């Protein structure tokens, strides 16, 4: 009885205080309705699932046939999920438990490697959709280009999904995870699926393109062909009606902070009326007990404390840790040179002994992405010079793959000269082009002329370091390592 009262109160709250749409059409007896709850970019935020599950239960008490869909990027963003023994499994199991019906494929679905992604599609009790992706022939992915769902009231609803691609015609993820996949332009792919409207009452795109790209898509489609675009990727909080070329576009921010409740009513003459409300999920409140139990179990997972390597020698300073992290970054990015900023190293000392995943997230808790660029020696010099004097946050950078000789003024405020040497002490060829890695924070705040703006590898510096350590097992002694010389010291 108490639960029923709570459910009723929750639903009343959800439908009255969080709504934004003013375009609610009255339903008549002959109308047929479909209700969809849409989220996107969950990014493994498993801690919001118990509250979200309660919301879903509450809404299903009113709308038993409600469809639950995700606009993709279910994965990546929480070490408990991302470093799980079977990477990414907690999120899929929670999505199963809550009862998702469909998910778009987002670029972060690839982050745990093709084999893990393949397994996710197999254990998912919901369908993954993507129409502009060709799957590897030697693997067994369960991904469909589209799905037609027949509701109990007889409505046929076609869902098609499109994934955003970068200029290299690939989704934004580590290229090593895309072996065997190929992709087609989402805007050229979309028209090929408009025929589905002939056999469905409603046609919906469940996309991972980003809001502005969904607007571009809507404007490119013939009016009246598509009824709704449910989006993801840009983490856009659409809290009011967005109608473009007659197509409603929704998106619910990210990380299960919000969900969009969408009502579509099909009139006997085929006319469709639409309304949407953005519901808040992440307030404190009622939780579904079963999901809470699952999340507690995942959070108690010993994987974060598991020893992944050993450091026989202690790290006595931030400099020693910085050189180590720069080496990890260079190895991760497979570049010739890497740079880490001083602020990118959180601690000043690390005792000799075992290193766990948690150790690495303590040293590098920032979630910065690995970024690679091709830079000439002169561009690298402009970069390091700008880091010293630009925002003034970093001053000196920790390098891997070369040595830096700074000559600075007595009060450290001015950089008088900067020289590079190869690691063996020989002169550095300034005219050559080098592959360089750094983190996304550094390169976003670097103001220097270069031909290559760079690209992310869609892996954080901490994750790269963990992967490297799991291969290396033993950390070398950094106590005698010195790569930065200031005024010859």
């Amino acid at each position, binding site marked *: 009885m108490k639960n029923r009262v709570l459910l009723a109160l929750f639903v009343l709250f959800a439908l009255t205080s969080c709504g934004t749409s003013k375009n609610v059409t009255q339903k008549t007896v002959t109308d047929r309705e479909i209700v969809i709850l849409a989220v996107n970019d969950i990014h493994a935020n498993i801690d919001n699932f118990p509250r979200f599950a309660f919301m879903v239960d509450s809404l299903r008490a009113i709308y038993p046939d409600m469809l639950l869909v995700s606009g993709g990027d279910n994965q990546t963003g929480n070490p408990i999920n991302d470093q799980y023994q079977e990477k990414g499994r907690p999120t899929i199991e929670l999505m199963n438990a809550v009862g998702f019906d469909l998910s778009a494929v987002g670029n972060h679905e690839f982050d745990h490697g093709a084999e893990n992604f393949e397994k996710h599609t197999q254990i998912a009790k919901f369908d993954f959709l993507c129409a502009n992706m060709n799957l590897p022939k030697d693997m067994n992915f369960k991904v469909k280009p589209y799905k037609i769902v027949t509701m109990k009231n007889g409505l046929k609803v076609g869902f098609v999904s499109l994934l955003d691609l970068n200029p290299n015609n690939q989704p934004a993820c580590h290229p090593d995870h895309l072996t065997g996949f190929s992709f087609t332009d989402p805007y050229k792919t979309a028209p090929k699926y408009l025929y589905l409207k002939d056999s469905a009452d409603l046609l919906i795109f469940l996309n991972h393109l980003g809001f502005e790209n969904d607007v571009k898509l809507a404007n490119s489609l013939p009016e009246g062909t598509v009824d709704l675009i449910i989006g993801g990727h840009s983490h856009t909080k659409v809290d009011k009606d967005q109608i473009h070329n007659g197509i409603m576009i929704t998106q619910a921010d990210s990380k299960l902070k919000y969900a969009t409740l969408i009502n579509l009513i099909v009139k006997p003459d085929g006319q469709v009326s639409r309304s949407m409300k953005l519901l808040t999920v992440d307030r404190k409140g009622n939780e579904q007990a079963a999901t809470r139990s699952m999340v507690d179990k995942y959070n108690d997972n010993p994987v974060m404390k598991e020893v992944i390597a050993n450091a026989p020698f202690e790290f006595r300073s931030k400099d020693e840790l910085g050189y180590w992290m720069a080496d990890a970054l260079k190895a991760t990015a497979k570049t010739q040179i890497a740079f880490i900023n001083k602020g990118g190293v959180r601690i000043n000392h690390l005792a000799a002994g075992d290193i766990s995943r948690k150790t690495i997230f303590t040293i590098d808790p920032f979630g910065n*992405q690995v970024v690679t660029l091709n830079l000439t020696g002169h561009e690298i010099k402009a970069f390091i010079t700008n880091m010293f004097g630009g925002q003034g946050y970093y001053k000196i950078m920790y390098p891997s793959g070369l040595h830096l000789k700074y000559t600075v003024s007595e009060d450290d405020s001015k950089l008088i000269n900067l020289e590079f040497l190869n690691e063996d002490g020989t002169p550095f060829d300034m005219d050559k082009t080098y592959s360089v890695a750094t983190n996304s924070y550094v390169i976003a705040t670097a103001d220097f002329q270069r031909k290559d703006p760079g690209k992310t590898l869609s892996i954080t510096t901490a994750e790269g370091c963990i992967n490297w350590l799991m291969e290396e097992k033993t950390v070398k002694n950094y106590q005698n390592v010195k790569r930065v010389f200031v005024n010859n010291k």
Partner: protein
Amino acid sequence: MKVTVNRIELMIFQGATVADAMRAYYTQKKEKVPSPLPEAEDAYGNSVAHDGALTDGSHLIIKE
């Protein structure tokens, strides 16, 4: 890729987030990057999260 922040066009690395573009914007303007970063909206007046993905041609307005 090219993104526009407060009507200023920026060339930024592929895969950059809203936060990256905002930091690049302040850096290009020779202003200190505020912490925490202010909120931002897209060209249609929707709020966008700092960790949201940007694509070539994205527009942002910083709400200061």
